[in-house]
């Protein structure tokens, strides 16, 4: 940049004006500072809409670590503001259990400082007001500073970083770029949340419709069964009473009594016919259309469709598909229906920050798909009730079919209609695994 110079080589006073931090940012002369800015631009490109919150966390934290030169970074989110403890999303260089404890213990002192517009808080600033156990956690974690994730009008989370490699301090320019990057991350998360909420609501609406149709069909099947079961004895009763009326002389008390019985029998017959008319005459059984299906591809597709919605609930959906799975004989729509029930249950009955694993593996004669969670588990004595219609292990939470307790019984019926099985294993305090087994397709 050319400037005019006096004879002594100094710049004239008019040119020696002080630059603002923003100007300094964009006229950073040093190679190191240019790299820092470039990292910021990289991050803006990397936070694209295809990611879920865990994807954002990975990309942002690696970006911060690489740009600032620290081997430690942690991200927590506050999905319900300060009403609930922060949820650990990712921790690099720090054990998850330690990071979780630090988030929960430090949120209160940090919120006080964040609300006073402090964008960077050193751990040494809050150490004195923390209990001994938390102080030890911070020492063990080697986390050095905390910074808020601020969306318009709300604190949505926070990030912590360790010291720089080699023990150097962060310079002001680096911290400015870091804060700008945090703002970028916050906006990306909020935007993704809004978009995913819309998609998730649409998906739930669609699924609710499908379930309503299924319930309607079950109701029709039930009514058809009742119609048949009631009609047979009524027909027998009618014909015997009719026969007796012909044999018993008219005008006798017995004939009068038989006429009363006949009238009531006819009344019952009419009620049964009315019931049938009311329900409509649809005689459907549980229909499955079996085909040879690439189950690995189906599970992969289902994972892609569900993972961002699950991330919206701050659980992580993870996928593990064994290579070279054999094709299976199944109805892909029914398999999807079963997985939907199992994943919905896993999300409903676990806490935020946990994970749900979708695993597809080969077994003798077919393929197993596990849906595993690390929630609180189900007591052994309650496992057998899971597949009984209208029963609920935990009546305080609604089940996948709106609280009627039909999700799992239906899922098992569907599995068996496809000549497969649906089983469950659970350990209290560890988690639950539902396993759908499907037979291999014959070549």
């Amino acid at each position, binding site marked *: 940049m050319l400037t005019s110079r006096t004879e002594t080589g100094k710049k004239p006073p008019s040119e020696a004006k002080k630059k603002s931090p923003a100007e300094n940012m964009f006229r950073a002369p040093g*190679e*190191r500072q240019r*790299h820092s800015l*470039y*990292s910021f631009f*990289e*991050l803006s490109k*990397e936070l694209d809409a295809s990611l879920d919150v865990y*994807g954002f966390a*990975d*990309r942002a*934290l*690696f*970006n*911060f*670590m*690489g*740009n600032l*030169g*620290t*081997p*430690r*970074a942690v991200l927590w989110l506050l999905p319900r503001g300060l009403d609930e403890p922060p949820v650990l999303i990712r921790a*690099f*260089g720090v054990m998850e259990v330690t990071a979780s404890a630090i988030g929960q213990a430090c949120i209160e002192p940090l919120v006080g400082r964040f609300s006073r517009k402090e964008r960077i808080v050193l751990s040494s600033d809050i150490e004195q007001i923390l209990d001994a156990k938390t102080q030890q956690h911070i020492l063990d974690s080697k986390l050095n500073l905390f910074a808020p994730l601020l969306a318009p009008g709300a604190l949505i989370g926070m990030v912590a970083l360790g010291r720089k*490699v*080699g023990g*150097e301090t962060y310079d002001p320019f680096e911290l400015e770029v870091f804060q700008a990057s945090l703002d970028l991350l916050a906006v990306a998360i909020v935007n993704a949340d809004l978009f995913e909420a819309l998609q998730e609501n649409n998906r739930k609406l669609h699924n609710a419709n499908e379930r309503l149709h299924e319930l309607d069909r079950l109701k029709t099947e039930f009514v058809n069964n009742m119609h048949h079961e009631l009609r047979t004895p009524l027909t027998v009763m009618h014909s015997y009473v009719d026969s007796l009326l012909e044999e018993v002389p008219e005008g006798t008390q017995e004939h009068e009594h038989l006429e009363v019985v006949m009238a009531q029998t006819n009344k019952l017959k009419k009620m049964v016919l009315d019931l049938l008319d009311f329900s409509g005459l649809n005689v459907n059984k549980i229909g499955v259309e079996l085909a040879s299906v690439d189950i690995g591809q189906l599970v992969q597709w289902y994972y892609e469709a569900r993972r961002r919605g699950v991330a919206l609930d701050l659980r992580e959906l993870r996928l593990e598909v064994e290579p070279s799975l054999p094709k299976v004989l199944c109805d892909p729509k029914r398999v999807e229906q079963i997985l939907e029930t199992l994943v919905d249950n896993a999300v409903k009955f676990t806490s935020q920050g946990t994970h749900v694993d979708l695993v597809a593996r080969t077994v003798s004669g077919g393929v197993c798909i596990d849906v595993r969670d690390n929630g609180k588990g189900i007591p052994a004595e309650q496992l057998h009730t899971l597949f009984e219609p209208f029963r609920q292990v935990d009546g305080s939470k609604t089940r996948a079919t709106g609280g009627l307790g039909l999700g799992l019984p239906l899922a098992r019926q569907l599995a068996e209609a496809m000549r497969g099985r649906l089983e469950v294993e659970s350990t209290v305090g560890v988690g639950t695994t539902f396993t759908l087994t499907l037979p291999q397709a014959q070549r």
Partner: protein
Amino acid sequence: MNQEQKNVTSSDEPEASVPQVHGRFQVLALRGRLDAAAAQAIQKQCSALRLDGVKHVALELSKVTFVSSSGLGVFLALTEEFKEANGSFHLVAPSNTVAAVIKLLNLHRFLSIELSLDHLARS
């Protein structure tokens, strides 16, 4: 390259090899751009090796044309991760581009960098 190998993807040249055993080390040779997507994939692959019981992992970087901040972040994260597991993580034969960025950010003091696989074997 064997078409059945797992691929670590980057934005324009998706190339990474199956880990090769080199003495006590498992070595992954990378090539192309080490951007955010590739960095994430490498982190997952190396963490999986650690969970499988592998103690010492190295990335061969002579054919890496570009490394982003995310790539550097993953190097730092894996160095720490393997150290805590009583193992080690190394960068081998970084290309000029990679070496320049590492030096610019003073990360060479923290990362374990070897000039070649022979140097790695002797370390």
